[in-house]
């Protein structure tokens, strides 16, 4: 258990919270720019050079906008919901490492984690992010609006369904490492350099975790709860100004946290061949940069995926979680248990995972389902009616 210093903890908290909120604001800018480039247009480029002051304008807008509380809402729940959203999102970041965590004893005792040495790291993150469901349900319920309620119910069903594959897919990584502590997981991967990264041993778990985390963050292709085309605004229809901003900040904080988690669990955190052996202050800075680069590439990937895949329908969404991802996560766990029991080399897991993935696709083809037929009535060459049976 590393020694705990109050001042260092407070300073870290202030710096990290400030950093996260600023990064959230700029993530909105990055999202708009990437969205624009993908759509063959230029993003915001009027406010400041290349639009870099756009988040400032957005922040000021959220702060100064008129804060409307509709008449028939449940006041307490209405005000509490966005608070819960942002509190749980920021709290989950307490155990996530964002820089080098193995600084040897001679150096200044600084860990790039807000709460170093928490042995239940992963479980803490999952537990706290599960509380976000409260924010959404309370927001939808208190809004006194049919569409908000529907959005909230859909969202809560989606979130709790995807928490299960999220937790289960990680179990393989945890078994391989032998600890829930996020710093230990990084250390264990660092021991073998780039070939120690968990992505080589658990590619299927990576895929499952990536999908679950996209669903947890309510991002496309799983953003049915906030789909503007379907539910007006979903659970945040009735919110204006800063409360709406808090929901958004909460969502982007989840994106940041889960990007860090993906980098930590599967890609060795701050590890990179050539950078790990560099010591001293330069080493710390390089490792920090490596970690941040990995995190940002995941964030850019999230944003690109948003503009690539169509939205899942609600029944397809639930079917994917319960019928595909949970069995796959279970089978993945069984494979890891077998490898650990008989002490085989973990690299066996790579072909086994890929085989599992392909077998799932094959089995899905043979799954009993009546073929969809489309009835087309033609008179001459005119199509008169079409019905799906």
């Amino acid at each position, binding site marked *: 258990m590393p020694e705990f210093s109050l001042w260092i903890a407070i300073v870290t908290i202030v710096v990290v919270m400030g950093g996260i909120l600023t990064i959230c604001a700029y993530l909105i800018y990055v999202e708009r720019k990437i969205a624009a480039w993908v759509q*063959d247009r230029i993003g915001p480029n009027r406010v400041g050079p290349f639009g870099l002051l756009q988040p400032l304008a957005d922040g000021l807008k959220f702060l100064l906008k008129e804060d409307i509380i509709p008449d028939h809402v449940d006041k307490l729940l209405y005000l509490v919901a966005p608070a819960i959203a942002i509190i749980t999102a920021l709290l989950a970041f307490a155990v996530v490492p964002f820089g080098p965590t193995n600084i040897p004893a001679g150096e200044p005792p600084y860990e790039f984690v807000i709460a170093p040495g928490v042995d239940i790291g992963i479980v803490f993150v999952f537990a706290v992010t599960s509380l976000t469901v409260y924010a959404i349900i309370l927001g939808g319920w208190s809004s006194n609006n049919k569409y908000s309620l529907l959005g909230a119910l859909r969202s809560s069903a989606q979130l709790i369904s995807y928490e299960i594959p999220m937790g289960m897919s990680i179990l393989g990584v945890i078994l391989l490492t032998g600890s829930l502590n996020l710093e230990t997981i990084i250390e264990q991967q660092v021991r073998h350099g780039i070939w120690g990264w968990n992505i080589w041993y658990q590619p299927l778990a990576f895929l499952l975790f990536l999908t679950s985390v996209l669903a947890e963050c309510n991002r496309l292709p799983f953003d049915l709860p906030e789909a503007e085309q379907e539910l007006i605004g979903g659970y945040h229809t009735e919110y204006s100004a800063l409360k709406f901003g808090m929901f958004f900040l909460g969502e982007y904080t989840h994106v940041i946290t889960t990007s860090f988690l993906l980098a930590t669990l599967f890609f060795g955190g701050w590890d990179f061949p050539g950078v790990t052996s560099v010591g001293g202050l330069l080493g710390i800075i390089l490792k920090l940069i490596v970690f941040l680069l990995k995190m940002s590439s995941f964030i850019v990937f999230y944003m690109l995926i948003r503009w690539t895949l169509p939205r899942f329908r609600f029944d397809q969404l639930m079917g994917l979680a319960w019928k595909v991802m949970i069995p796959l996560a279970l089978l993945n766990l069984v494979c890891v248990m077998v490898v650990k029991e008989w002490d085989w080399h973990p690299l066996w897991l790579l072909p086994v995972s890929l085989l599992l993935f392909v077998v799932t696709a094959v089995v899905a083809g043979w799954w009993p389902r009546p073929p969809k037929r489309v009835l*087309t009535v033609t008179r001459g060459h005119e199509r008169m009616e079409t019905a799906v049976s």
Partner: protein
Amino acid sequence: MPIAAGDVTWVEEPQIGVLGRLYLPAIITGLQTTVRHMFMPKVTVEFPEQQPILPPNYRGVHRLNRDEQGRVKCVACYMCSTACPAHCIDIVAAPSPWPDREKYPELFVIDELRCIYCGMCEEACPVDAIELTSLYDLTGLSREEMMFDKEKLLSVFDETVKAGTDPIRTKRGRLSVASEPLTANS
């Protein structure tokens, strides 16, 4: 009326195949398209630094044309005002001071705010007097300011001809029938 069996076609849903059910190959193809679009040239026209390229028959602000002697071509025949669907053209005719015409417009006011910029007046005019230019960024500080009278419309002509953006459009290079000077035979 019952549907005859011969008119019905059953179409089976095409099978997705193992590669399709893996989803990943399709997602990767999709991502390639997405990333390719990120590096393609952008279609945005950054107004006001860049002006859009307008088609040659763009319908913008009206103008009253002048003939070679600098007189207004309009003969106050009221065809444009009759054709206008929005009733925005106001003409008061008067005997013309020139010997080769009967009438000329003493007052010619177009309410640019009522106008729907359909171009019917341009099509209706027999003497090619009224035309729609390619000026689109029209602003004014009051409703009265936007009712363009004859002088304003003629000034639009002077400006657009000088700027070279909207050349004079007469048919076959001649003035049309009603603008020709009266001869002894007609």
